[in-house]
């Protein structure tokens, strides 16, 4: 009898522990219902605050979806041009390395600096699209999709979170704020964009909820 009692007691305790653990998991999942953690934040000096992170990303999203950024992150293999998303004149193609093909390589027209005058090609020493094997498409992406793509090294150009932070000061990124005559700049200053970018990442790089 005593052995049976002991067995039942152990059985009861096991059930109690299981129910407790399950309850904790359920309560925690309610807390994370509206945001999704997109990154592993070990060793990255990240303090998780999903609300702050998501709010910052919605500012980042406005910039990344503006023409100066999206024109070189198209869904197809031809860059976009202008402020209305039209295909680039003469239809240059991405090519394997993102630098164009044959007599239509980016640097054949795009010089190291902007050229003066309306409709002249803007410039940077390393003008290019993302490569064919990692297209880093912005065009058509929702905030949720884009955030997840940006923090995944398999889709963001093999960048760590720290490298992502540094990417805000990449020369070609900053060229978006000096686009040459006749082109609009992104909807906020580079300084404000960088602040939002870093805020998003350092608070956990959360992705907004899918709608």
């Amino acid at each position: 009898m005593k052995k049976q009692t002991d067995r039942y007691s152990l059985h009861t305790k096991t059930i109690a522990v299981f129910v407790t653990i399950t309850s904790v998991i359920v309560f925690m999942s309610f807390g994370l219902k509206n945001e999704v953690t997109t990154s592993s934040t070990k060793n990255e000096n990240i303090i998780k605050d999903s609300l702050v992170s998501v709010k910052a990303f919605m500012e980042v999203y406005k910039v990344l979806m503006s023409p100066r950024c999206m024109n070189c992150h198209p869904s197809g293999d031809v860059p976009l041009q202008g402020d209305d998303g039209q295909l680039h004149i003469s239809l240059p193609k991405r090519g394997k390395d993102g630098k164009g093909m044959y007599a239509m390589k980016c640097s054949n027209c795009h010089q190291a600096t902007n050229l003066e005058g309306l409709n002249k090609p803007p410039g940077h020493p390393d003008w290019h699209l993302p490569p064919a094997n990692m297209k880093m498409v912005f065009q058509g992406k929702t905030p949720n999709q884009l955030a997840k793509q940006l923090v995944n090294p398999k889709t963001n150009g093999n960048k760590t979170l720290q490298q992502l932070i540094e990417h805000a000061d990449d020369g070609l990124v900053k060229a978006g704020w000096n686009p040459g005559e006749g082109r609009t700049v992104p909807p906020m200053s580079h300084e404000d964009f960088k602040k939002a970018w870093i805020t998003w990442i350092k608070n956990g790089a959360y992705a907004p909820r899918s709608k």
Partner: protein
Amino acid sequence: MITLNINKKTYNVEVDPDTPLLWVLRDTLGLVGTKYGCGVAQCGACVVHLNGEAVFSCVTKVSRAAGQKVVTIEGLSVKNDHPLQKAWMELDVPQCGYCQSGQIMSAAVLLKENKNPTDEDIDAAMAGNLCRCGTYLRIRNAIHLAAEIQRKGGKNQ
């Protein structure tokens, strides 16, 4: 003073470093085979080779070409016997001829990088070269013919 290597010859020119290469070629050096069409890299009439790559000389500052290897239509071959030139003559490609220097220079880069281009490759390579006379079909056929000439032993510099 800017030193230029054009068609294997050395030239020293006194020009503003921001002068488009096109005008140095045409006005300063008298190499008028390269044409002005638009001035904003949208027509391809001005294409020359800079270190083997096609560049639009109307937007390329001469300073970029300093000390580099430039080849114009005049220097594509010594005896006008480049496979493309042979094919162009064989198929009687030009009408007015104005765009043809740029067409040939762009096609030369294609054939250097792709010995057997498809129509899709030709589209990708030649999309920056416009022809108001509409010789596109003959240009395409001539590129295919030039590729065949090249495969049979014609030289592509």
